[in-house]
């Protein structure tokens, strides 16, 4: 177990800056998820932590000690690869045993024939077998120990890769998109298992994914990366409710947050599609802003003056909820509202409806920089109008 410090890490491949000075402190025992779209540099950062890639500048520390000049094998980390990287010629048991054999047996003790002559090696090998069995039982793969990776399903291979990582006591677990090769159902199941594993081991986990749902469901904290920058580091709920940047707001959450364009009025409130929204951002009059409203915060009501109106384009029934796809005049992007299905019995595609939301649920972003703008409610705070 150890804390991991990332200090001013820079990396470029040719003329592209993949990481632009990343600083991140990961606490001991934390489940930290690096999340971002593909090409944001998250995997490169993980590989730099592992030592598989050298940084151009900056420093990595594990357990308070700088490890920049240490080889990956000397950093005492375990990694689960996206491809699982199982040795195809070894059985499941032998695969899980590799880290112990490499670390606990000398080169001669590992030789197939010579190794048998040493009585000390025999004792060590019994201990290795015991450890392998313990891990296999913990992961429910004990019955597969004699199989080759080729004979396993994707989920079983994933467990073997996890087993190989946890068989010794690493300082930190690194996971590089470990669930991306699994089918959707298994992926949801493995999310729970990996979270459980983290709880039971208590070791620091650094987990890379492009799937915001994985990040939200498993992490203690999420680090959102975009284009080589670290944009926000916070617990999942905070990243969702209080995003620091419009890109974070758009990346986290499904369906995506609704973005409306507005202009700050002379009264300090925001005008949007000819309607005044009762919120006062810290922006000068005439400034362009973007308003973000989560789909579940939008309600559908009858059209009325002073209310944003839109046309229903499509209704998606999810059972308890309904996703309402709407098109607003003068807005390029469609709007999505998530409402309880019983409120929408009479709604039909083509209906003109009004949109209702509380100003408290509106996130205001700068129109040009995309940064979050602090805002107050206009006085008096307008009542929420129900349909």
């Amino acid at each position, binding site marked *: 177990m150890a804390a991991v410090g990332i200090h001013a890490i820079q990396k470029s491949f040719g003329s592209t800056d993949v990481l632009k000075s990343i600083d991140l402190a990961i606490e001991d025992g934390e489940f930290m998820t690096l999340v971002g779209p593909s090409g944001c540099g998250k995997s490169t950062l993980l590989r730099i932590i592992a030592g598989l890639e050298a940084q151009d500048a900056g420093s990595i520390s594990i357990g308070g000690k700088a490890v920049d000049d240490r080889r990956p*094998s000397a950093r005492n980390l375990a*990694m689960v690869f996206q491809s699982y*990287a199982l040795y*195809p010629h*070894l059985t499941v048991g032998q695969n899980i045993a590799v*880290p112990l054999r490499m*670390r606990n047996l000398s080169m001669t003790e590992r030789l197939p024939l010579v190794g048998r002559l040493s009585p000390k090696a025999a004792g060590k090998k019994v201990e290795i077998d015991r450890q392998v069995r313990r891990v296999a039982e913990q992961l429910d793969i004990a019955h597969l120990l004699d199989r080759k990776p080729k004979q396993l399903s994707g989920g079983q291979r994933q467990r073997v890769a996890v087993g190989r990582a946890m068989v010794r006591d690493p300082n930190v677990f690194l996971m590089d998109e470990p669930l991306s090769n699994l089918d959707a159902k298994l992926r949801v199941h493995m999310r729970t298992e990996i979270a459980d594993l983290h709880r039971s081991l208590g070791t620091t986990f650094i987990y890379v994914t492009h799937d915001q749902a994985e990040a939200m469901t498993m992490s203690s904290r999420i680090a959102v990366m975009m284009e080589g920058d670290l944009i926000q580091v916070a617990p999942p709920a905070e990243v969702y409710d209080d995003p620091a940047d419009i890109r974070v707001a758009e990346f986290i959450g499904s369906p995506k947050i609704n973005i409306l364009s507005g202009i700050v009025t002379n009264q300090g409130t925001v005008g949007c599609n000819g309607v005044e929204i009762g919120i006062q951002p810290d922006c000068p009059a005439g400034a362009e802003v973007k308003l973000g409203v989560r789909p579940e915060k939008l309600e559908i009501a009858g059209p009325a003056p002073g209310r944003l109106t839109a046309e229903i384009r499509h209704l998606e029934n999810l059972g308890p909820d309904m996703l309402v796809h709407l098109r607003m005049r003068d807005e390029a992007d469609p709007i999505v509202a998530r409402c309880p299905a019983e409120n929408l019995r009479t709604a039909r595609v083509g209906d003109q409806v009004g949109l209702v939301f509380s100003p408290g649920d509106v996130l205001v972003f700068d129109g040009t920089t995309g940064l979050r703008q602090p805002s107050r409610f206009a006085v008096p705070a307008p009542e929420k109008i129900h349909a």
Partner: protein
Amino acid sequence: MPSSDTMTFGSAMPAVSVHRKRRSLAAHATAYALSAPALFLMGLLLIGPVLVVLMMSFTDYSLGNASFEWVGLANYAEMLEDDVFVKAIGNTLLYVGIVVPASVFLGLGTAMLIESLTFGRAFWRAVYFLPVMATLMAMAIVWEFMLNARFGMISQLLTLLGLPAKNWLQETSTALPMLMVIGIWQALGFNMVLFMAGLTSIPRDLYEALELDGGSSSWSRFWTVTWPLLSPVTLFVVVITAIRSFQVFDPVHVLTKGGPNNASMVLIYQLYQEGFDFFRSAYAAGLTVVFLVFIFAITWVKSRVMEKNVHY
């Protein structure tokens, strides 16, 4: 009612099965008819010649004779008495036994060295592949020139170092080893290219996983990842090199003619001499059968090993 049902069912059965049999016969006939041309050509061009050679080896036929007699196993019995044949078999096995491991391991070593380079890979690849592209007949003349006792560059180099120059290809003790050197020189480039293809197909993340698992020495990288993952390529390379080594002919023909005193006589060269210099076609056919037995043996071993060990 149930009895009548059973009746109908029971009486219908044979009719159906006869019908099926007829249909399957018809289907089989069509299948045989459609594959007949291919089977005929395969028999004529691939299996037929082998059978003809096998039959010929039981006769006393000589090229140009109007008739022949069946002599049973006489040709094979003669082989056992034939000093040249015994020498040729011994030399061929020795040649294969040296050239195969040497060219396989040197090929692997060269491939790994070239793959580890950061630049100049294409150049070195071309250099080592040159002997493969040049015909061995032409390159044999180059070797003859290089090994010439008076003006060959190897002899000159040795003289320069104060060592005695030899007529390498004309001496009993060095003729066969020289042919082996040429054989290794030629096979190395081909094996290297095959190993290079094998090396590039090993997933990089296996080396990375091993590095994190604690195997950071090049020794453990080789034994844990490279060698086991190359085993299908290695098996293929060994088999191909073995078969090609059994077939060694061109350098023998150009450089030594099997001499001096049969010191460099090999199976295929003896076969050539018996068949085309002495016109003893039946005896040559017997030698061909012996050669084919070796090739079949290699192929059989290969498929057995393949089934057991080297598939993932």
